[in-house]
């Protein structure tokens, strides 16, 4: 669930434009290769369209494409119901991100600390929450902890596991970013008389955070998707509202398609922001 967060944009070296860099590993195909690529593209397009058509055909046969079953999603009360869920999703994601990202940075710093106790503890913590499925953490808060008398409101039963898991994976993003800052910058900072703390705050972190900004936005996408586990704790986020709606209206296919569409649109927009940031940074890095 955190595969998308692990990538950190490589530091584009000045003058090596990103286009030139990708060309190095890519041999332009010859006429035969081009024909083969075209053929494969056409075949896969036909197959994908075929599958889609078959799906639509099945839906049509079963009356799922009946306009009456779709126009209801334009009704104000339907929209308000789903909108309530969307609001819940955004709230959960925002709160989780606002806590998890700074916590991730602290975990990364702790892992890179010179105090080996701190470093080891943080490593164990990060690896534990990175390796465990978030669903298990949610269950722990829903089932295990209450057995010992520790209970949280529904909102926090969802948000705390999101924070724990996301902080661990963003910690690794931050660590990669800090390591990606040029060694010369550490030296430069030391040479002009910055202590370790000053160097970190004034030299290393500003550059590292800029490097990982696109990855952080991808981490936000992951968080948004993780929030769908809200159905486990019955928190009214978008997917849970969809589920409730299905149990009332029986419009299973339609509801989940509409809900998916909403997720896809939001995540698409976030990803675009990440790509735009990444492009802007590469342009700036190669400006010299």
């Amino acid at each position, binding site marked *: 669930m955190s595969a998308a967060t692990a990538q950190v944009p490589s530091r584009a070296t*000045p003058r090596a434009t990103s286009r030139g860099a990708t060309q190095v590993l890519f041999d332009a195909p010859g006429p035969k290769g081009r024909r083969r690529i075209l053929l494969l593209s056409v075949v896969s397009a036909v197959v994908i369209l075929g599958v889609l058509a078959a799906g639509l055909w099945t839906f049509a046969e079963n009356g799922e494409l009946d306009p009456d079953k779709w126009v209801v999603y334009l009704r104000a009360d339907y929209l308000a119901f789903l909108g309530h869920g969307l609001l819940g999703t955004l709230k959960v994601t925002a709160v989780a991100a606002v806590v998890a990202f700074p916590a991730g940075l602290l975990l990364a710093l702790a892992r890179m600390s010179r105090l080996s106790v701190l470093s080891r503890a943080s490593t164990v913590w990060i690896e534990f929450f990175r390796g465990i499925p978030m669903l298990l953490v949610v269950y722990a808060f829903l089932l295990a902890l209450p057995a010992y008398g520790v209970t949280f409101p529904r909102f926090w039963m969802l948000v705390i596991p999101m924070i724990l898991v996301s902080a661990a994976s963003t910690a690794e993003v931050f660590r990669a970013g800090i390591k990606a800052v040029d060694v*010369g*910058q550490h*030296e*430069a*900072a*030391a*040479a*002009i*008389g*910055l*202590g370790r703390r*000053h160097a970190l705050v*004034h*030299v290393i972190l*500003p*550059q590292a955070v*800029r490097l990982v900004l696109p990855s952080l936005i991808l981490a936000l996408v992951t968080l948004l998707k993780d929030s769908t586990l809200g159905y486990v704790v019955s928190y009214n986020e978008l997917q849970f509202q969809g589920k409730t709606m299905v149990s009332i209206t029986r419009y299973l296919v339609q509801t989940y398609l509409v809900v998916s569409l909403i997720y896809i649109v939001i995540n698409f927009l976030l990803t675009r922001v990440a790509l735009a940031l990444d492009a802007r940074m590469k342009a*700036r*890095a190669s*400006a*010299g």
Partner: protein
Amino acid sequence: MIGFENVRKEYPGGTIAVEDFSLEVASHESMVLVGTSGSGKTTLMRMINRMVDPTSGRVHIDGDDVAGLDPVKLRRSVGYVMQASGLLPHRTVLDNITTVPVLRGTSKNEARSRAHELMETVGLDAALASRYPAQLSGGQQQRVGVARGLAADPNILLMDEPFGAVDPIVRGELQQELLHLQRDLRKTIVFVTHDIDEAFLVGDRVVILRPGGVIAQIGTPQEILADPADDFVASFVGADRGARTLHVERTDGQDVVVDADGRAAGVLDAGGRSTS
């Protein structure tokens, strides 16, 4: 005055960067350490501001053992100019220059007005103050590096191959400007390079190092050229290839000084000294 006393640097694993090095650099003198890679020249220079601590031996500045000084405070009081400028890419030129003075407690306004003066001193247009390093040319970045090194008005300026990353023409300009600056500022400069021509140009005295920080010869450029200590030095300065020998040819009633390849180096004036 900077003094090295029987300094030795040995890295874990047994690599010996510097075996046993002693040197005194007089105040207001520019001393160049020159040698190939592995000669320990950068290691030696970094012992002055404690970026490297010697395994044994002492380094002192005006009689104070640097081992007893706080490294951060020490580094703020010693100017440092490094190769490829080492500027902070996320800060403007002005902020790069004012970083150290502000950390030392100078007020922001004062540091800024001083930075503007320094930019003028090193030949940077005032309009560049708000630019970022990536928007400057290599030569301009290096000038900013020098301005930053001078920002805290240090008595000592350490220069680590400062002009190594710029093209030969700009390098020549920067070298000449450093000489100008030094005439006015009279800092104690320790300058590291692998370029013997640069060493002879910039240095009041030059130390030629063998691998392991062994001094092959120390002296003024004139002394070294006139009397290379051994074959190593002769080969290093190019004397063995005849690259340093000039002779006089008489052309159109003038004494023209010509180098080993037959290129004219200058005209002999009436006083008998060659002008270039």
